[in-house]
């Protein structure tokens, strides 16, 4: 890796530390708002993808901004130790539109003011508290607004003859998470969609503070249930980097296997639901059957259907004997064949393809500007996949091929899912066939000083990022998990206008974003 070149281009005096278990990642402290904004500009201009922005409060207030480059992950940290009140930081939204909601979230929860941000509306907190809830030390009672008016959100209106509004949610008509959508519609056609999220805000960043590592891992696993493996793994990587601990090869293999099983389970569920939303109930029955088979095997071999809490900092809580490996290999073979059959049926089904094609188009250029990754990004020609690009161990040994499509419509996102299932299954097969002996979990070393770490994994929807700051004795001082949904929700807003109202459920399903992972 041309690490030297790389550090010359950016901040002098740091290098990206390669790690065996994943991509190189570095935390770069910034000493002034000026250098912070300069560095961010350089990173964005040199092809870095903005991945998220978050804050940490008491006792060391700071803003953290993450960029993913081909070379590795970089987090800029701007300490806010200036004696001003209220504390401010420069907004990045003028050149990074995606930063808008993140900066509004920081303003809501911490009270730090993004200078230069045009949008003054709240985002996550919905005006429920009279003070920013994370500004005070943990355990403080946060006064609530006596009668919060949740309806009072200034949505942008479209005016004109025949234009009307459709409000949807927060309680949706199905087994779905809560959120509000406001459509501006003329006839059947959507002119504008605006999202209002934050209904599942549970104060996760606040709950991390002061927890032990093990309790923190349980919480991280519950940031977004369908990505529990990815969140647990990112958190574990962050803790392990902070403690300078490297998991054994066997543990890395098991983790990669679990991550792929989560991906396959989710893709199966999504493909079934997409068929159903386009009127093919057969697809739902078939894919949910395959998913249930997989979940039941998870229960037998790993002890949990959705693999909650199987990955812990220091290792994994599961082991496979030869019989289990043979069983999983047999499952793998059957599943690959079944999915192949179903893909042919989907491809040949005129009615289905008619609904999928040219619906909900995310143009590659727009996807790039919004920094979309994951299935959505790859369906719109954004060639980013941590497993294929960076290949820490074991991906280096069995590199998965990158799935890519250019059309950016629902059909492209369906195709990406089909491709990725087969690729994941091939990877699982290789991992199972070469699984090294491994000890289950090792005790973590102690940290004599405060230490920070980062973790990043290619989850079901894209890059899941974790950052943790540990006080001596393994107590979490602050932590944050960044689900890719936060970057993809704005992309949904862009995609829907121009489509029929009745196509919204289908488009939404083809994104299948997490509300909980966004709202934290």
């Amino acid at each position, binding site marked *: 890796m041309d690490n030297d070149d790389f550090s010359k281009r950016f901040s002098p005096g740091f290098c990206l530390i390669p790690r065996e278990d994943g991509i190189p990642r570095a935390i770069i402290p910034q000493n002034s708002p000026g250098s912070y904004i300069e560095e961010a500009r350089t990173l964005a201009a040199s092809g870095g993808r903005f991945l998220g922005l978050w804050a940490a409060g008491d006792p060391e207030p700071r803003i953290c901004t993450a960029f993913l480059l081909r070379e590795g992950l970089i987090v800029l940290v701007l300490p806010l130790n200036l004696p001003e009140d209220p504390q401010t930081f420069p907004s990045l939204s003028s050149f990074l539109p995606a930063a808008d909601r993140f900066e509004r979230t920081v303003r809501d929860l911490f009270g730090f003011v993004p200078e230069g941000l045009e949008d003054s509306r709240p985002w996550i907190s919905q005006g429920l508290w009279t003070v920013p809830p994370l500004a005070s030390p943990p355990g403080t009672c946060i006064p609530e607004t006596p009668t919060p008016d949740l309806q009072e959100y200034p949505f942008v209106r479209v005016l004109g003859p025949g234009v009307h509004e459709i409000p949807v949610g927060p309680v949706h008509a*199905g087994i779905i998470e809560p959120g509000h959508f406001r459509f501006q519609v003329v006839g059947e056609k959507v002119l504008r969609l605006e999202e209002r999220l934050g209904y*599942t*805000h549970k104060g996760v960043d606040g709950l991390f503070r002061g927890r032990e590592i093990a309790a923190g891992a349980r919480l991280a696993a*519950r940031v977004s249930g369908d990505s529990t493996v990815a969140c647990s793994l990112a958190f574990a990587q962050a803790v392990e980097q902070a403690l300078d601990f490297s998991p054994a090869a066997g543990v890395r293999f098991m983790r990669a296997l679990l991550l792929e099983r989560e991906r396959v389970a989710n893709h199966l569920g999504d493909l079934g639901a997409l068929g159903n939303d386009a009127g093919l109930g057969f697809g739902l029955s078939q894919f949910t059957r395959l998913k*249930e088979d997989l979940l039941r095997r998870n229960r037998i071999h790993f002890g949990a259907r959705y693999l909650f809490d199987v990955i812990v900092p220091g290792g994994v809580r599961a082991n496979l004997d030869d019989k289990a490996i043979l069983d999983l290999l047999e499952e793998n073979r059957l599943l690959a064949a079944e999915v192949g059959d179903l893909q042919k049926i989907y491809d*040949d089904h005129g009615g289905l393809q008619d609904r999928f094609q040219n619906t909900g188009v995310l143009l590659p250029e727009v996807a790039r500007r919004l920094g979309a990754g994951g299935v959505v990004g790859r369906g719109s020609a954004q060639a980013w996949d941590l497993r294929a690009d960076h290949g820490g161990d074991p991906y280096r040994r069995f590199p998965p091929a990158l799935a890519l499509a250019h059309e950016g419509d629902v059909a492209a996102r369906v195709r990406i899912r089909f491709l990725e299932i087969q690729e994941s299954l091939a990877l699982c097969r290789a991992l199972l066939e070469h699984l090294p002996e491994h000890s289950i979990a090792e005790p973590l070393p102690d940290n004599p000083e405060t230490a920070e770490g980062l973790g990043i994994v290619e989850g079901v929807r894209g890059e899941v990022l974790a950052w943790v700051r540990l006080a001596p004795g393994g107590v979490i001082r602050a932590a944050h998990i960044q689900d890719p949904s936060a970057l993809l929700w704005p992309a949904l807003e862009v995609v829907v206008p121009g489509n029929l109202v009745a196509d919204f459920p289908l488009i939404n399903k083809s994104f299948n974003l997490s509300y909980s992972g966004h709202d934290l």
Partner: protein
Amino acid sequence: MWKLLVKIFRTGRLTEKSSRPVTQPHTPGFGRSLAIRHVDAGSCNGCELELLALENPYYALSSDGAKFVASPRHADLLIVTGPVTKAMKDPLTKTLEATPEPRRVLAVGDCACDGGVFRDSYAVCNGVSPVIPVDHQVPGCPPPPDEIRRAILRAFALPRQAQK
């Protein structure tokens, strides 16, 4: 088309037998059909995955006479998941008000029972019962589908909990 039919034929029937308690003719209850409205009050979406699983061919909840409906006005049973975030307190109460009597409330998952891992956060109400009266709870994180199903089937004949 023939591929699709062959697949259906080869897959066969997968639905597992369940044991719905037979309600006696004169006891209060919902007879043979139960309409369920689900409200996510801020879950991590893990519990939703298991509720969705109830509709797969193995559990096929509808073959027991229970089905998920799109409006609380059609519902006999409210299933609530999540620790009830402060922002969902109001929508949850309104959903209950829109559900006609007789009705039952089932709290599914550790979060809905007492807040689970999110307990004592500034942003949650520590479960459903501090917000609306709960008739029955299913602990677990997430609870497996057969346990949720058992609780739903029991709800057919669930006596009403005293109003708080």
